[in-house]
């Protein structure tokens, strides 16, 4: 491997450097995931739900900023009417002062003059079974995809695509853990979208590798060169698709505001990382695993050979 790395052409060197970078990023992500964990949102943790009414109608925005001043943690305020609101907040761990703070503030403020109707603990929106089922689903999906690709392509390319997929998911999770961005059901949905995107990207590069390998079955070019050629010929496509998708996600990120922020961040990272990994992992790993044109030589029996040899 070291040999290829030093002697290879420019493209190959870039690919291996990218792979090294990926490995470092994965290690960092795993490190922050184990150290900091994910900042699970109310959907997952549960929390407190407080319903209150105000004596006169208040704008949701004003109330939101008023409570934000008197609340240390994160909360979710929804309007049930002009003077009827619901506030969801995470259970406070260290002190209970947080939740009392805003409640006394809104009840004592003369303009708002709120009256708390009820306050109760709310369990998580997703059961424990979702977590188990989710893991099972992901695992099954990966095995199935790997099997399909192994049959259609070759096991080395299949491993490359699936490793690239796992890489993308770990990096996105790592970012969410590092920045402690809230991980809620919407972000989970975007992870699922990343799976689709990442696979798509890896397969398109992998498919071209296969095609060129088949053509080059007489071993003129080294696998490294073939992979480089495959990447070069799909690069425009990769950049255009990533570009248009990123443009969509970026406009959601900039314009849609809070409800879709986590969704947009996850997807944006996922697409950038996915494009990167389709080149540096999905196409490079098979080379390390010993991919060569020989894997694609068509085995022909004597009968077919004679048919082929016929003029």
């Amino acid at each position, binding site marked *: 491997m070291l040999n290829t790395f030093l002697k290879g052409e420019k493209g190959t060197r870039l690919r291996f450097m990218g792979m090294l970078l990926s490995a470092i990023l994965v290690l960092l992500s795993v490190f922050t995931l184990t150290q900091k964990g994910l900042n699970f949102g109310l959907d997952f943790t549960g929390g407190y739900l407080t319903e209150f009414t105000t004596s006169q109608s208040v704008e949701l925005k004003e109330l939101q900023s008023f409570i934000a001043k008197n609340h240390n943690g994160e909360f979710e305020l929804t309007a049930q009417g002009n003077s009827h609101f619901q506030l969801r907040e995470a259970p406070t761990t260290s002190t209970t002062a947080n939740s009392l703070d805003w409640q006394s503030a809104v009840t004592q403020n003369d303009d708002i003059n709120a009256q708390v109707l009820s306050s109760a603990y709310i*369990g998580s929106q997703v059961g424990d079974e979702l977590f188990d*089922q989710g893991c099972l689903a992901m695992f099954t999906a990966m095995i199935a995809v790997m099997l399909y*690709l192994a049959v259609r392509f070759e096991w080395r390319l299949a491993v490359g695509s699936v490793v690239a997929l796992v890489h993308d998911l770990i990096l996105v999770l790592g970012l969410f853990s590092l920045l402690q961005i809230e991980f809620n059901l919407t972000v989970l949905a975007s992870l699922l979208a990343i799976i689709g995107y990442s696979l798509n990207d890896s397969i398109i590069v992998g498919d071209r590798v296969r095609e060129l390998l088949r053509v080059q079955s007489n071993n003129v070019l080294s696998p490294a060169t073939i992979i480089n050629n495959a990447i070069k010929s799909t690069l425009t*496509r990769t950049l255009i698709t990533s570009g248009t998708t990123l443009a969509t*996600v970026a406009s959601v990120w900039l314009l849609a505001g809070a*409800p879709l922020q986590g969704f947009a961040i996850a997807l944006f990272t996922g697409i950038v990382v996915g494009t990167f990994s389709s080149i540096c992992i999905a196409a490079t790993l098979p080379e390390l695993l010993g991919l060569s044109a020989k894997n694609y030589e068509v085995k022909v029996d004597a009968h077919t050979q004679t048919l082929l040899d016929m003029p």
Partner: protein
Amino acid sequence: MLSFKKDKKPSTAKFKLSYIAMLIVLVLLAISALPNLYPNKSWLHISTAPHSETQSLPSTKTLVTFLNNQGLEVEQGVDKQSTINVLLNEPTKSAQAQAAIKAQYPNTQVKIVEHATSPTWLQDFGLSPIKLGLDLNGGVLFVLDVDLDKAVDEQLVSAYQQAKSIIIKQKAHGVKAQQTQHGFEINALPNATDKLTPVIEELQSRFANLAVVTSNNGSVKTAKFSYSEQGRSAFDKEVMGQTLTTLRSRIEELGITEAVTQQQGKHRIRIELPGVQDPTEAKRIIGATASLGFYQLKEIGGQTFNMQSGGTIKLDPVPIFTGDHINNANIGRDDWGKPLVQLSLDGQGGDAMSTFSKANIGKPMATVYSEYSQNAKGEVVKKSEVINVANIAQHLSSRFSITNMKSQQAAADLALLLRAGSLTAPVTIVHEQTIGPSLGSENISNGLAALMLGMGITLAFMALWYRRLGLIANVALILNLTSLVGLMSLLPGVVLTLPGIAGLVLTIGMAVDTNVIIFERIKEERRQGRAPYQAIQEGYKQAANTIFDANITTMITALILYGIGYGPVKGFAITLALGLLTSVFTGVYVSKILSQTLYLKMGKKAGVKAHA
């Protein structure tokens, strides 16, 4: 599947046939998507409450003035014979108006009813817009109370019954079980004290949370069973968890994907269902407590059960197995056309059934149907009925059916409940309310604006980069969006949320990929010196394999997520899978025909000098 015709110029007949087929599919999907241009409007239907003393409604004018004063501007107020129908300027505030009217006029009944606004011919086809989720359109909120005390009582009675049968089974003479105020106790006479321990051990292995205190009362040894505080809270937690799981799967069985089910406080459950107009069916299924048990008949001792056909019967209080071991249940009809429920048991249930039926061929077995209901005093009581006693004709295994169902509806409900699991504790709906959307209208319009912008950028880019081919891609893209929306409107379980819309546009964004792959390939072929028409043929042909592989793998993922996932994951998987289907359809087939037509015509007009 994605093979393309090898001949350079397709025969006109073939060409026309596929052209027509494609057109029919596109038109059908476009018609299904059409109702989305006419979103439903939420009207308030105000009528007198059924049991109110005063049978008078406020006049339409008074009501409209009242709502306007509340800051809820009325767009239209219609006076029907017995109801007043009101449409607000902002229909999303209907839930709020409902609460305001109820508070002001307690004798009225206010319903929120969705009125379709699409032309009647679309409604006649049974077509409707995609249902909107809790965040966009609100829905119905139920708060259920779980009767944990009742569940504990039931559990203690069951433990007592089982204690009695354990004593008989172990032939522990001199040992006797007896019910007490807070549970039950087992007494052992002096000569039988050694037989007490195995009974206690057996019982504790079946009821882990039960606490036992042994004492010597003179020469009699007594073991008192009850729930300790710790055991009780462990039991409560278990029951709540099980109830939540069961309710979630029942809601899923009803075909509602984007519902929110969570625990509220210690013994309540909060369920939010999106856009459910008539919650009667949901209520019937959510609150249902029906369960099944299969019992052996007893001539001596045993518990007395009522027969559905009248009379009583004595059964062994310990069931052979219960509904918990049922894997799958479906409705069917017997030879006389009467409804029945076909069951298949899991491993444990199958084993129990197999051993029991083998040893008892020719003997009868009873099927007991139990349900909680409220009696006249408002107390929750359990009603158990033997619906069926049948002789075991042969050695049964894990598949058999229950006959003698009252009606088709009863059979269908029982099958659904058996699939979703039964509730250990009775639940009652204590609160029902219509709720408004959880996202503000500003959030929604911002989100939509962002998506429009993203879509616009994509369309503009494609048109600039690929010129004429780009226009084809854009037409394919818009057809793709129409087809996807059409498909989603046709499926009853699909609910659209704001993240769902974002996912939808993302799917469309990724669908561009199909065209990009093909067009890049065409450019490559052109560089290799092929004529435009051949380049297009070759480009589509070469790209087809790649597109096929990429979409199949993603489809595998989507199907697995749909099969194993739950709730929001399932909803996302549906959108993903449908998006793949439509993008292959429009991106490969439709755009191929479009480009062929375009270049074929141009080839005739201007020779081969078209640019790609």
